[in-house]
């Protein structure tokens, strides 16, 4: 009896329990929400892109004209700088020494010229004058001696020889006077003009050399090219700074009162983009922060995609169209930050 009716009863109970168990063990299919809200589509028809926040002036990687050893860094990251303000200076000891040398050359040339310009020396005039006066007196004396002998009527009373000698003495005295007068005049005339010109040219040359050294010195002082903020300062005293384009800029600066965002649009999606399109940017990490973006311009040349991980060895064979958008004035963004963009796409096409 028990077996007869027990078996069906057992079967019923067993099946019910099995159904219960199966139902309990069947996992509930639930559509979970992402732990953090992802950036969502902002327009029905849109182009997705990644954007990099940058300064409105674009980010300027400050370079220097000559490589050299850094001796002083006058700014730090975050500083606001005016155009022309010193950023950092390079070692200038050799040029300073050279400058000192060149400056002495200028001084020397200048004093040489001064000396030439100052001649005749006033003290030299009186002796020359005296020599003229003396020559005059000697000439007068010789003339007197000649007259005395010529006054003798009787030629026998005098030696013909004496007469001749005295005549020659007068001539000689005349010549000496002329010489003394000429000497005096030469002295009074001062320096010869061409000599002065030479000296002046020498001075100018020396001065030009000083100016060149000063220009070289000023090139060792790296200054801010625009008003802006220092975004990155990767230069420290004691380091050797290379000139030219560097993978890691020495100083990165830009005008940050207005931020732009550079969107990379895949070349395959470029046809869907139209200049002037509306766009929305969503901040990574908090997709609920959305900024409306204003179209600025398209960079018309489609460039190979630069990987935003910043690793230059990575090669990606995609090319991207870069489009610049303007961010609102007040944002919680920093230059260099990435954003997910939704750009409204053309209606036509697909």
């Amino acid at each position, binding site marked *: 009896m028990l077996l007869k009716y027990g078996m069906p009863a057992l079967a019923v109970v067993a099946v019910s329990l099995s159904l219960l168990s199966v139902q309990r063990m069947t996992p509930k299919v639930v559509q979970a929400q992402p732990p953090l809200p*992802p950036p969502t589509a902002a327009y029905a028809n849109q182009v997705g892109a990644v954007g990099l926040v940058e300064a409105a002036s674009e980010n300027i990687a400050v370079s220097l004209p000559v490589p050299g050893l850094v001796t002083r860094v006058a700014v730090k990251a975050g500083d606001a700088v005016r155009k022309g303000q010193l950023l950092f200076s390079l070692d200038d000891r050799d040029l300073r020494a050279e400058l000192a040398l060149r400056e002495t050359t200028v001084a020397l040339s200048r004093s040489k010229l001064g000396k030439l310009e100052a001649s005749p020396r006033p003290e030299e005039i009186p002796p020359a004058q005296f020599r003229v006066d003396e020559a005059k007196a000697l000439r007068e004396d010789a003339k007197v001696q000649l007259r005395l002998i010529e006054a003798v009527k009787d030629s026998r009373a005098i030696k013909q020889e004496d007469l001749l000698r005295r005549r020659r003495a007068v001539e000689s005295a005349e010549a000496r006077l002329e010489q003394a007068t000429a000497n005096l005049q030469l002295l009074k005339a001062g320096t010869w003009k061409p000599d002065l010109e030479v000296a002046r040219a020498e001075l100018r040359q020396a001065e030009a050399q000083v100016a060149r050294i000063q220009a070289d010195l000023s090139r060792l002082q790296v200054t801010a090219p625009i008003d802006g903020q220092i975004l990155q300062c990767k230069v420290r005293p004691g380091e050797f700074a290379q000139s030219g384009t560097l993978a890691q800029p020495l100083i990165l600066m830009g005008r940050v009162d207005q931020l732009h965002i550079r969107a990379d649009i*895949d070349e395959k999606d470029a046809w869907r983009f139209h200049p002037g399109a509306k766009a929305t940017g969503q901040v990574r990490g908090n997709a609920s922060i959305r900024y409306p973006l204003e179209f600025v311009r398209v960079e018309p040349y489609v460039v190979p995609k630069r990987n935003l991980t910043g690793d230059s060895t990575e*090669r990606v064979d995609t090319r991207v169209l870069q489009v610049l958008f303007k961010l609102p004035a007040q944002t919680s963004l920093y230059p260099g930050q990435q954003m997910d963009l939704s750009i409204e796409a053309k209606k036509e096409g697909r």
Partner: protein
Amino acid sequence: MKFIAWQMLTGDKAKYLGLIFAIAFSTFLMSHQVSIFCGLMSRTASQIDDVKDAQIWVMDSKTQYVDEVKALTDQDLYRVRGVEGVEWAVPLFKGTSRAKGPDGKFRGVILMGLDDSTMVGLPRTVVLGDTRALSDPETIAIDQVGYKFFFPNEPVTLGRTIDLNDHTVRIVAVVASSAPFVNLPVFYTRYSQAIQFVGRERNQMSFVLAKPTPDISPVKLTQQIREATGLKALTSNDFGWETIWYYIKNTGIPINFGITVVIALIVGTVVAGQTFYLFTIENLKQFGALKAIGVTDLRIVGMILMQAVIVGAIGYGLGISMTAAFFEATKDNLDLRGFRLLPQIMQGTALAVFMIVFLASAVSVRRVIVLEPAVVFRG
């Protein structure tokens, strides 16, 4: 008449029980083996099923299944985002790496890199710790089975470190994830961390996970993504099935299980059929008597069928409950996680069992129909 049939059936207790247990064990064998097979096969799609927040997977157009991927370019993510009907799309890294425990024991691990800012794909069942701590550098969440492998017989604690491809990573959370097919430990980390751990490759993004907007069906969106980007897009369900089919086609597992199931079917049919046949033969006298008093053949067929259905139902009920009990008993065993009795298997086995009993009764019915009522009185 029904009462007579019932009395005939239960009259001989040994045969009654014999019939029931033949069917019960055949049911158990079939449903159990098919369940294990389904459980094993569904493990191949574990990593797909574990992503509960995205419905669409986008991958390279030639991808065959989830474990072998060709990475997409980073830009493909933005192309998917540009497809109409995509509410959101995030990257996913799925790869393998080798991890070494503190005692030097190493193992290949499945490394899942989840989008840094949204963590889409994160398992929701956290055993210990806080998955938000994954935002710290060099951190991972590990599945509990992986934890047991690296730190056997130790209580689950946080902050332990594992060497992952020359990176020392800290465990900040222990999570429950579905068992992978090859039963490797599963590590969850951020996308950017994952690509650092595995080292440099040209492209790293394995998949793009997307969610359709409310006004479009996932299947329709997969078509749109395919058309717009040329990439392959599948719903989680389709991708899971594609992966399962890949394994079914390319491994010996289905043959192996198929043989077992077929044997269960044959043994069940033969044993139940034979027992039932013998039971009918032994009752031929009674059937003959019934025939003699004018019971129609149809009535007798009805009686035999009724007996068959009763035996089948009881046997099935006992057999299927054995299978259910097995999975109920093993549900907390981590190595058998994911194995369960599917409702479809319950239905399918029921169908198979009733096929068996009908087949068995059909053979018996023939003997009763051709029976001459006079035979009864001759002996």
